[in-house]
């Protein structure tokens, strides 16, 4: 038999067909239905199982024209890398823009280890992934932060940003170990009171 046809109870059918030169292959189905968005994979010997697909999900751009912070929540636990993109982002003050990571218990404001620079004297940071040692008034910032899973709730960061109102690049890198599974990020400022007043921010996540 080269095909197995399962007839629908009302109409139509589903058919499994063997290749013309079929070889001798046995495919063993998984013992469960898997979870949403999983795909069937093989162990190379014909045993099939469900596994998470590598997905790259583009978020919806958010206008960074108000608020003292912008949170992206509900980040799935399978995510291994997050890219935070700035397009013309500005605030109404001079407090440094930074990114903080969080869990279902909240956003964490300590334990970040790294350095950021802008061509002048670089600066250590500890209260967030800091964009720059300084944030001159009226800075309009473009570029991205890339935040990658190191394993065991530890996340590494690198960023490269450029101002479009003046000649200045911002760059840096660091690491942060969270108390639990990452499910949110926050874009805010060191002082927490400066307000975003221009631009858009988006994220892309994958895993």
């Amino acid at each position, binding site marked *: 038999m080269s095909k197995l046809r399962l007839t629908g109870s009302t109409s139509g059918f589903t058919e499994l067909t063997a290749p013309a030169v079929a070889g001798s292959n046995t495919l063993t189905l998984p013992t469960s239905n898997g979870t949403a968005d999983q795909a069937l994979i093989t162990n190379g010997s014909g045993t099939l199982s469900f596994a998470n697909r590598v997905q790259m999900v583009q978020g*919806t751009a958010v206008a960074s024209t*108000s608020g003292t912070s*912008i949170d992206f929540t509900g980040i799935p636990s399978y995510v291994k890398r997050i890219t935070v993109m700035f397009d013309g982002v500005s605030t109404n003050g001079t407090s440094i823009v930074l990114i903080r990571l969080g869990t279902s218990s909240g956003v964490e404001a300590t334990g970040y280890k790294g350095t950021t620079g802008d061509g002048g004297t670089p600066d250590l940071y500890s209260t967030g992934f800091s964009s720059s040692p300084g944030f001159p008034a009226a800075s309009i910032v473009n570029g991205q932060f890339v935040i990658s899973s190191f394993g065991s709730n530890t996340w590494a960061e690198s960023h490269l940003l450029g101002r479009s109102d*003046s000649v200045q690049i911002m760059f840096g890198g660091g690491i942060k170990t969270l108390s639990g599974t990452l499910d949110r990020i926050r874009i805010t400022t*060191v*002082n927490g009171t400066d307000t975003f007043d221009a631009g858009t921010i988006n994220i892309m*996540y994958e895993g």
Partner: protein
Amino acid sequence: MERIEVNVITGEQKIISLTTEEIAEIRSRPQPEPVPEPTAEEKLAAAGLTVSELHQLLGLEVTP
């Protein structure tokens, strides 16, 4: 003060007023000194140029 919150799964956006505890925490942070805008000389140095090199590039004669 307000926070914008975006759920990446549903796309829902909310504007949330900060709680009194959150505002108190923010107000308790040390406020850094404002960072001055870089001078023209600092911008030149960041680009790897000296003033004399810029003059030469622009074909300007400099009187000592």
